[in-house]
């Protein structure tokens, strides 16, 4: 077969059957002499984005190095496109699998075009001269990672984010079916992190590239992956779609979280304070108090939250922060019951934060009450379901009865009063955050 004939691999997904299994590991053991991970069995089809999750040192890189043939497997079998790894010659393998490692080589005096051109290595002739078709592929790959404008720059003069895009382009220039990436977003700022993951996601969808990436951000993994490969304690804990695998409990256990919580609904991590400063009851719902909740938790307050609906954003944030959350549509909970509970938990609080502001968030006849409740959503008058305003009034009354300090946040969740109050209580507010908080 001539090089020319094998070259124009159309990026048309129709040409590549999506059902084809691109990587299959059977009972695989990896490690340096002693196994670090063993009994790994998984497979995924062409065009999948697979995230490898696990804490530092669990063996993510070792697994990647084994899959990329840098390390021999200690046991089991790896098949790429149903062909054993050992059945590939070095250059055949390079046409199917490419890698992006954490080590970002950036030799001096090498232009981006030449650098990405190095990725054509398995496709070029004896001296590695780039033909026009090769340059075309290089330019297309640069365009794919949105780095077309960098082609004339020197690689060692790029920023971290640009360099990572360019190294992605180099790996793409190999025209692989499977790309292995080790922490592709390490050292990148948020913008580049999001952009890079978006690019990879797009390549999977549009060009039917398969990606296996060790990632550290569970939240990102949950959002971009088709499959998640969770590693812990020398083995595969779970393999499947993120929505099935990544429950809050699972993630907390995977990383041995103590000071943080993952919310599968928010798709993000919340950092928990130690709650040693005191207890605060926060009246909030509908994102009014989410910022304040984080703020309080950060400054070491234990949180109690009432009384949002169960699927309210603030309820999720509070849950991830480890707060005691009282929701108003708890199953079987009569309003009196909920109120009694709320009063009880108010008793041992040091102060109350009213994030709902001076105006009631849900005037009777509620603006955005969930549809299923619409029918019986009358203002509380004994029989129907009470709204947030009702609970707020009752709790504020109870708080004054108990003599608790009440901090009211300004309209739109303005947290200046909270910051002031915390300051008086001896909590040093970090400048920018305090300002952002009061300005928001």
């Amino acid at each position, binding site marked *: 077969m001539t090089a020319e004939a094998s070259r124009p691999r159309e990026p048309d997904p129709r040409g590549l059957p999506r059902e084809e299994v691109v990587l299959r590991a059977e009972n695989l053991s990896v490690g340096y002499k002693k196994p670090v991970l063993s009994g790994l069995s998984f497979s995924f089809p062409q065009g999948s984005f697979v995230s490898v999750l696990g804490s530092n040192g669990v063996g993510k890189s070792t697994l990647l190095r084994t899959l990329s043939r840098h390390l021999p497997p200690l046991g089991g079998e790896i098949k790429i496109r149903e062909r054993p790894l050992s059945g590939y010659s070095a250059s055949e393998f390079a046409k199917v699998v490419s890698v992006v490692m954490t080590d970002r080589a950036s030799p001096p005096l*090498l232009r981006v075009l030449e650098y990405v051109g*190095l990725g054509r290595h*398995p496709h070029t002739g*004896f001296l590695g001269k780039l033909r026009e078709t090769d340059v*075309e592929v290089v330019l297309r790959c640069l365009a794919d990672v949105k780095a077309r404008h960098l082609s004339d720059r020197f690689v060692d003069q790029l920023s971290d984010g640009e360099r990572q895009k360019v190294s992605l382009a180099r790996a793409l220039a190999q025209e692989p079916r499977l790309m292995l990436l080790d922490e592709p977003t390490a050292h990148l700022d948020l913008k580049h992190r999001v952009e890079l993951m978006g690019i990879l996601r797009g390549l999977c969808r549009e060009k039917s590239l398969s990606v296996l990436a060790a990632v550290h951000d569970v939240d990102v993994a949950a959002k971009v992956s088709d499959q998640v490969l969770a590693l812990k304690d020398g083995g595969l804990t779970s393999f499947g779609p993120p929505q099935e695998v990544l429950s809050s409990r699972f993630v907390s256990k995977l990383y041995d979280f103590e000071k943080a919580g993952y919310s599968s609904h928010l798709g993000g991590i919340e950092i928990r304070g130690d709650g040693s400063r005191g207890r605060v009851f926060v009246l909030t719902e509908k994102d009014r108090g989410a910022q304040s909740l984080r703020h309080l938790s950060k400054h070491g307050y234990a949180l109690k939250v009432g009384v949002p609906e169960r699927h309210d954003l603030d309820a999720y944030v509070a849950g991830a922060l480890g707060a005691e959350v009282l929701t108003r549509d708890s199953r079987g909970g009569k309003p009196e019951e909920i109120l009694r509970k709320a009063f009880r938990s108010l008793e041992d609080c040091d102060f109350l934060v009213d994030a709902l502001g001076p105006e009631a968030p849900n005037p009777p006849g509620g603006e955005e009450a969930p549809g299923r409740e619409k029918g019986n959503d009358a203002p509380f008058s004994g029989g129907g379901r009470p709204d947030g305003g009702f609970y707020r009034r009752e709790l504020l009354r109870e708080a004054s009865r108990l003599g608790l300090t009440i901090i009211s946040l300004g309209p739109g969740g303005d947290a200046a009063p909270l910051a002031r109050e915390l300051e008086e209580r001896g909590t040093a507010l970090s400048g920018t955050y305090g300002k952002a908080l009061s300005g928001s």
Partner: protein
Amino acid sequence: MRAELSLESALIARRHAGRRYLVFIVLSASVLILTFANLMIGAVSHPVGDVLRELVRPFTDSGTDLSFIVWKIRLPRALATVMGGAYLAASGLLLQVYFRNPVVGPYILGISSGATLAVSLAMLTPLGLRLAYLTPFLTTLAGLAGAYLVMTLVVAVAARVSSGATLLIVGLMTGYICSSVTAILTALAEKEKIKGFVLWGLGSFSGFKWLEIWIMLAFGGLLVLSIFLLSKPLNAFLLGEEYAASMGVSIRRFRLFILLAASSLAGLVTAMAGPVAFVGLAVPHMARLSLATSDNRVLIPGACLMGAIVTGACDLIARTWLSPVELPISAITAFFGAPVVIGLLLKRGVKM
């Protein structure tokens, strides 16, 4: 879109070619001119015409003085500087790429120390007297033996360890061991012998025999050619071993080839001309900076030509500056070469 891309890629593919051809023509011309200057200029200088006339007429013993000077003294020496410089530059370039380290030179693996030790054994100890029948090739043979023994050792270690840094340290340590033995021998040696030995240690291209020239040409030429032919995997090495492997280079074999080729070239030159400092370390940088690329397909011939120019020019200075005293070549190469490297670095503002 596609048509645009094709047009653009065609332009890009052609863009750099033109300038580079020009650079190579200039470099090659410089080598020729310099070589010719080396034939003309010396203790007795001769006009171009006379030298040319001698060159087109093959050497005969019954010829003129000029014929003898050109064919027996200056031509072998000029050719030796051209080859010596080229080989050292290629060797240094190869090792700099392999170790991904800009301060590495051909002698980093202890090649010169090994050669020096063997030569000190031959020149400073009674061992040399017993092998006296080998003169005038004694120092050359000793240097060759020393250099290649150390090379064998380092390559054997390289087959076991995979880390470049480890290998570097092993090479350095081997070098130190050889140097300390040499130091002991020097301390014990007779005074008169020491000067000759010290001067050998600073390198000189004087007294090359035609036999040596042929050996250098055949052996070294073959190595340089094979290095050039392997510039594709060498380019992949710019990104480090793991990336090179992921792009289809078989690392194990290639690593041994790099070490063998670089050390063989350095050993060859060292055995015949002594350790010539600076060229192998600095010329690759000069080539990189003045050609503004890291592409080894350009750099290998570029560095070879520049190595030839630098060494040729330095040898000319060494012979003529304080004539009739001939200065050691290492003194000149570093003295004139280092400022050039510093200047280029500052001008380009490159971090190596």
